[in-house]
Each structure stands twice: as structure tokens, then as C-alpha cells.
């Protein structure tokens, strides 16, 4: 099939063995990227092993649109066994690595085993080697990239790597691409560290072929034209995801003690970043959105910092939720995480918990190595981030992530630990936007809004008519109502699974108020591959992917209905101020929402587990068999 290289690269670090295999059997069933990764993980990684066991796999993947003329076609997918939740982890990152991997000749890269000593992988077109990494082990991500670039001068290589956090097996560790793009979720940086794998360097010259190049490029041009007309494109170009921030925009405050930051939000709006620090707009591969920006700080405490970033999760995580309305501090935290290879969301959830525990006197300076974790103490926050990466002192506890840290500390600190399925939460609007919250709570990777949460609630141009036409419910723009929200989440989680498997960015789509919908991606897929597909067929694959992920979680951890609830705080403590004052998640309404969600998915309402009927309809025989064997399949006729 065109659009693919047709090969996957398999590297066994324990056996020092490099091999290739045809990728077509996987691509034909699951498109690419996340879908293929989920399938390989399910079939080849026992749910019983530790995520840091050498038998765990790192499955990097591209999709049929990666590296092509399709808009924003630079996405890299990663699937592995999740260090934080214990179930499945999938992550998706931008930059320039994924197209290069494909140009080097591989759709997917699977790494297993553990090297005897620190190594990096060099993939130069078809030639692959395992190289000594002693000269970069211990270096941060930025130093690592600089040293490797110097070594491969003039060769235009693309690099992904881990920092000290991954080397030290911090559960908050991630993988960084091109210095500032993260494969964030699931402690995947620690999986890389556990394999003694410091970096992957790739370079390639082989182009991607299309089944019908002329009509494919026409379809790409149509997609770009649609995006030019989109509200989402204008907003992202203006200031990335932080362009949405205003005093009425829901932001978490002081570890979710409130859900509104009021006028403090004005201090971290995109126009402030732009005026004070922005030097340049920046884009990922073939992306017209340029939602990223470069910044340079020329005065004050953080003088000399040059970095790329920052997206809204940085503003939430280090701005409002730590209650520091200082854009320079946000940039400092964001870039420190990128340098050390730390996942911003998990770090933020962990820090905010520690600060609130200090406020509530659960933690004292005796616990925190003398650091005064008082809201607004910038130095303490930055010091803690560093300690987490190096597992130094109190940082060794925090390196377990918020769910791990609260278990170690005890002392009723659980009450302030904001996580779902052990995964730290860095979100706004959980008490306000019902589908947003449901998508986070049911996310197969443990948390985060990039599974099933729609981004439409509270967005003015998503009228009931637009909502009905696109999603089959009229309420996508209305945040408060529970009506229609289960159906909306089911729609978006399938859509996202497809996008992650195609190898393009979710920001090009309906999700980010852009104009590309499933029909557009079906056309792009059909024209690059030559295999005709429609929206319904794509969505069926999306549902299959989600069910594989769900089953892996059920087999690994046994997550059930109870694990699909948000932390008590969101149900017991309403928003205290602002235009959404008084809003909270009503437990009865949440229960009904879950009932509806499970019913739509043909899952068992009581347990939240999958049924035989659901898996038969989706033709997932092996998944059904494994669940049945584990006694975790619900029979519908009983």
C-alpha cells in the first residue's frame, strides 16, 4: 500500500540485534501510529510485567500521512506500557523526527530489551547501528542535542532523547523531540532510561510515494485552504493555545482549590508573552498553524533564557495552579522541564499537591529539604523540579508522580492528590465542562484531555446546528449540560484515535476549532494509499483501537467503573469565583453520564468492563479471548 515504507525496524538491545519486518499486516488493520502501537503492545507485552522490565516495548510509529504534503504531517506516536498507570501509554509529539524516520525507510520502530551500558541509536537511511552514549549520558536534553548535532555536522539529523529524569527512572520523565516537543504521558522517558537508551538519531532521503500523487496533492491543497478559513487557525497563529486565556477562561488555582483565576489571567495572556519575550513564530513539520513560539528573556530574574514553547498546559500547570502570574516564571519552568526531560502535566500535578500539603501543614520543611513550599515561591518550585529529575532528597518521593508520592507520604495527603488512574491532572474546567471532564476521566492512557475530551464546550461558533451536523448532538458548545455529552466523547475519542494513527496533528481538525473533519481525513487517506475508505470505516478502526487499549488496562490493572470518576474535590468543592461560580460535578449526574457512555460503547454498565458482544461486533477475537481467560469479560447473555 502506498503512503507507507512497508517496513518496521526492530531493535533488541539485550541481544544487540537489529532486524526488519513487513509493516503492512499491521498498517492494513490499524492505519499506523497509535493503532499499530496498541495492537503490537497488546500482542507482545504481557500485562503482568513491570513497565520498566526489559520486556516492555517502546513502539514509535508514523502514519500514512506522515512526511507527506498533508497539513501538519509531522506527528510521532509512541506506545508503551505505562509507568504511571500500569496500563497502556500512548503519546503523540510534533517536530521533525517522524517524517525523518519515514524517509529513513521505516513506518515503525520497536525497541525491546536493555543495553548493557548507555547507548544511542543511529538510523541513517537503511543503515542502523547501536552506538556508545557514554559521552552524552548525564547531559540534559538540550546539551545532548547540541553534542549530537556537532557530531553529525552538515547531515541535518533529527533527534529525540531523554534527560536526567529518564536516566534516573523518574515516573514523571518524558521523551523530548527537537528540544521542545514532548512525548509526554505515561513516564515513557523512564522506559527509555530503563533500557539505557539515551537518544535516537535519524536521517533519511527516501520519499513517500502516493497512489495518486496529483489528486492527493489537490486534496492537501483543499485542506490547507479550509484551514486558512478556520477560526482555530487564526487563534493558534496569534498565540498558540494560550490565545484563549482571558479572565473568564476556566483555569485551576492552587491545586484546584478554585477554578477561576480572574484578572490574574490577564498577566499571562498571549499578548503579554508576545510583547515581553516572543522573538519568532515557529511551526512543526509542514504545519500552517505555527502554534509554537520562540522566546528570549532579556531582563529580570531569568535573563538569558532562550526557549521554545509554551502551550496552555504550561500556563495552567506553572501559572494559575501554582498561583504565579508571571510569564517569565512559566517559561522558566516549561523550559526546565524540557531540558530535564520531564512531563509538564505530571510535574505540575505533583508540585501543586506538595504546595497544598505544605499549606495544610501535612508537609513541613523537614520533609522538603528545607524548601518553603509557599504559594508563589518560584525558587522552591524550580528547585523541586530539578530535584525530581535527579531523584534528589524530597525529589525522590515526588519522582513517583502525584499518586505515588501521596502513597509514600500518607498523612491524609490523598485528599489533595489530583489524579485519575494514578495519572496527575493538569486541566482547567473539569467542574464546568461535562464532556471535557468525561473524556479525561475515561482516557485510556490514564488522564489528559487528548483522548475523548472535545474542545468545543463554551466555544461560540459551535452552535446547536453546527454541533448537530457534526456530532449528532446539539450540545457540543454548551459546557454545563450533561445532555449529549457521552455521545460527544464517544465521537471524539474515535476521531482522536484515527488522527493519532494517520500521523497528523489534532490541531488541524474540528477539535481545535479548525475545519477538517473525518471526511477530509478519509479522502487524504484514500488518495495517499489508494485504498478507498470512508468516515464510518475510519471510526470503526478508532473504536477498535480504544477497545484494545481499554482491554490492556483491564488486564494490567483491572481499572473499572470506580476508576472513571474524577477526584472527590471536583464533586464536593464548587468553583468559588468568576462566571462559573458554584459549578461542580454532580455525582448522580456523573453516574448517569457513565451509564450512558458505557451503553454507547456496549460495555457493562455495572463494572465498566467490556462485553463479549462489543468485542464480537468489533471483530477483536484475541482481545475477547484474553479478557475471558483473565475472567474480566462480561457476558451479555448472563
Amino acid at each position, binding site marked *: 500500500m502506498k503512503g507507507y515504507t512497508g517496513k518496521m525496524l526492530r531493535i533488541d538491545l539485550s541481544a544487540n540485534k537489529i532486524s526488519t519486518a513487513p509493516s503492512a499486516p499491521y498498517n492494513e488493520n490499524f492505519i499506523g501510529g497509535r493503532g499499530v502501537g496498541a495492537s503490537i503492545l497488546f500482542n507482545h507485552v504481557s500485562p503482568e510485567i513491570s513497565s520498566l522490565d526489559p520486556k516492555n516495548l517502546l513502539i514509535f510509529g508514523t502514519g500514512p500521512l506522515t512526511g507527506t504534503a498533508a497539513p501538519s504531517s509531522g506527528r510521532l506516536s509512541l506506545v508503551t506500557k505505562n509507568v504511571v498507570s500500569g496500563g497502556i501509554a500512548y503519546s503523540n509529539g510534533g517536530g521533525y523526527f517522524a517524517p525523518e524516520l519515514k524517509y529513513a525507510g521505516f513506518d515503525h520502530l520497536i525497541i525491546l530489551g536493555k543495553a548493557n551500558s548507555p547507548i544511542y541509536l543511529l538510523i541513517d537511511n537503511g543503515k542502523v547501528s547501536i552506538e556508545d552514549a557514554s559521552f552524552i549520558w548525564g547531559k540534559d536534553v*538540550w546539551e545532548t542535542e547540541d553534542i549530537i548535532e556537532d557530531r553529525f555536522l*552538515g547531515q541535518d539529523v533529527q533527534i529525540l532523547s531523554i534527560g536526567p529524569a529518564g536516566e534516573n527512572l523518574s515516573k514523571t520523565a518524558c521523551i523530548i523531540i527537537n528540544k*521542545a516537543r514532548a512525548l509526554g504521558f505515561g513516564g515513557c522517558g523512564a522506559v527509555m532510561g530503563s533500557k539505557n537508551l539515551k537518544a535516537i538519531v535519524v536521517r*533519511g532521503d527516501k*520519499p513517500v510515494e*502516493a497512489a495518486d*500523487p496529483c489528486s492527493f496533492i489537490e486534496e492537501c491543497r483543499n485542506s490547507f485552504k479550509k484551514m486558512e478559513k478556520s477560526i482555530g487557525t487564526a487563534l493558534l497563529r496569534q498565540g498558540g493555545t494560550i490565545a484563549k486565556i482571558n479572565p473568564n477562561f476556566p483555569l485551576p488555582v492552587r491545586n484546584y482549590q478554585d477554578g477561576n483565576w480572574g484578572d490574574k489571567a490577564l498577566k499571562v495572556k498571549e499578548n503579554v508573552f508576545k510583547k515581553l519575550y516572543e522573538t519568532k513564530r515557529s511551526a512543526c*513539520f509542514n*504545519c500552517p498553524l*505555527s502554534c509554537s513560539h520562540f522566546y528570549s528573556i532579556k531582563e529580570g530574574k531569568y535573563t538569558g533564557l532562550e526557549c521554545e514553547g509554551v502551550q496552555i498546559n504550561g500556563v495552567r500547570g506553572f501559572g494559575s495552579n501554582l498561583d504565579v502570574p508571571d510569564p517569565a516564571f512559566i517559561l522558566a519552568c516549561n523550559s526546565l522541564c524540557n531540558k530535564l526531560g520531564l512531563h509538564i502535566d505530571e510535574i505540575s500535578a505533583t508540585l501543586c499537591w506538595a504546595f497544598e500539603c505544605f499549606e495544610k501543614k501535612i508537609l513541613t520543611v523537614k520533609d522538603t529539604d528545607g524548601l518553603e513550599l509557599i504559594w508563589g515561591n518560584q525558587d522552591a518550585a524550580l528547585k523541586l523540579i530539578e530535584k525530581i529529575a535527579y531523584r534528589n532528597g524530597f525529589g525522590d518521593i515526588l519522582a513517583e508522580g502525584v499518586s505515588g508520592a501521596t502513597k509514600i507520604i500518607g498523612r491524609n495527603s490523598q485528599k489533595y492528590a489530583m489524579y485519575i488512574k494514578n495519572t496527575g491532572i493538569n486541566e482547567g474546567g473539569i467542574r464546568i465542562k461535562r464532556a471535557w471532564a468525561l473524556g479525561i476521566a475515561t482516557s485510556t492512557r490514564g488522564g489528559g484531555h487528548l483522548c475523548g475530551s472535545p474542545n468545543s464546550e463554551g466555544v461560540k461558533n459551535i452552535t446547536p446546528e453546527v454541533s448537530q451536523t457534526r456530532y449528532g448532538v446539539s450540545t457540543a458548545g454548551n459546557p454545563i449540560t450533561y445532555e449529549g455529552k457521552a455521545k460527544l466523547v464517544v465521537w471524539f475519542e474515535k476521531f482522536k484515535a484515527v488522527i493519532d494513527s494517520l500521523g497528523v496533528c489534532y490541531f488541524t481538525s474540528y477539535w481545535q476549532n479548525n475545519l477538517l473533519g473525518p471526511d477530509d481525513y478519509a479522502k487524504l487517506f484514500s488518495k495517499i494509499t489508494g485504498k478507498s475508505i470512508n468516515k464510518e470505516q475510519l471510526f470503526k478502526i478508532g473504536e477498535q483501537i480504544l477497545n484494545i487499549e481499554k482491554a490492556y488496562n483491564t488486564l494490567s490493572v483491572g481499572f473499572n467503573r470506580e476508576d472513571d470518576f474524577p477526584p472527590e474535590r471536583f464533586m464536593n468543592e464548587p468553583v468559588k469565583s468568576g462566571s462559573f461560580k458554584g459549578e461542580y460535578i454532580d455525582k448522580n449526574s456523573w453516574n448517569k453520564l457513565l451509564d450512558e457512555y458505557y451503553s454507547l460503547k456496549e460495555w457493562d454498565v455495572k463494572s465498566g468492563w467490556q462485553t463479549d458482544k462489543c468485542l464480537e461486533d468489533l471483530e477483536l477475537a484475541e482481545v475477547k479471548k484474553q479478557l475471558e481467560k483473565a475472567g474480566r469479560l462480561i457476558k451479555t447473555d448472563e
Partner: protein
Amino acid sequence: MNKKDSKIKKSYERPERELLKMDISKCTGCRSCEIACTYHHYKNFGLAGSSIKIFRDNKNGEIEYFFTNTCDLCKNEQNSLCIEACSSHALSLKR
């Protein structure tokens, strides 16, 4: 030797193409022009066949670019494909 100088000088020949101009302050480094150019030459999708080369410094976003002598100003195309593909309007024809 300066790192970026060496990176570029190794492979590429000329800083300018007579009829094309680039405003690097607008360039976001997305490489859409390279993909469009490769398509023009080979009807496939990649970077290696492009007559324009973009280098982005991941530290500060600074852009350097070069044209190779294979640029034919999109002979037989209706428009210059690199210019058409550039969403940030960094590329244009010299008048």
C-alpha cells in the same frame, strides 16, 4: 568554524536564486516549501529532492536557507509551488 556555517556549506551551493526571495523573519521553519519543491521535481513527498533547503536552529528558531542549482522556477507548473505552499508568506518572487 561556526557550527551553522559548516552545517550548510557542506552540501549546498548558493544562497540566493535569482528570481526568488525569502524573508527569514517570517519563516516558521515548517519546510512546506521543501515538500512542495520535491513534489514538483519527482511527484513524491520528501525533502531530499528539494531545490530549497531550510535549516532551523532549535535553540532560538533562527532560520537559514539555501537554494541548490536544481531550481527551475517550477517549469511547467501554474505557480511557483514553494511560494504557494508557504503559509507564512516568507517566500515571494523578486519583481
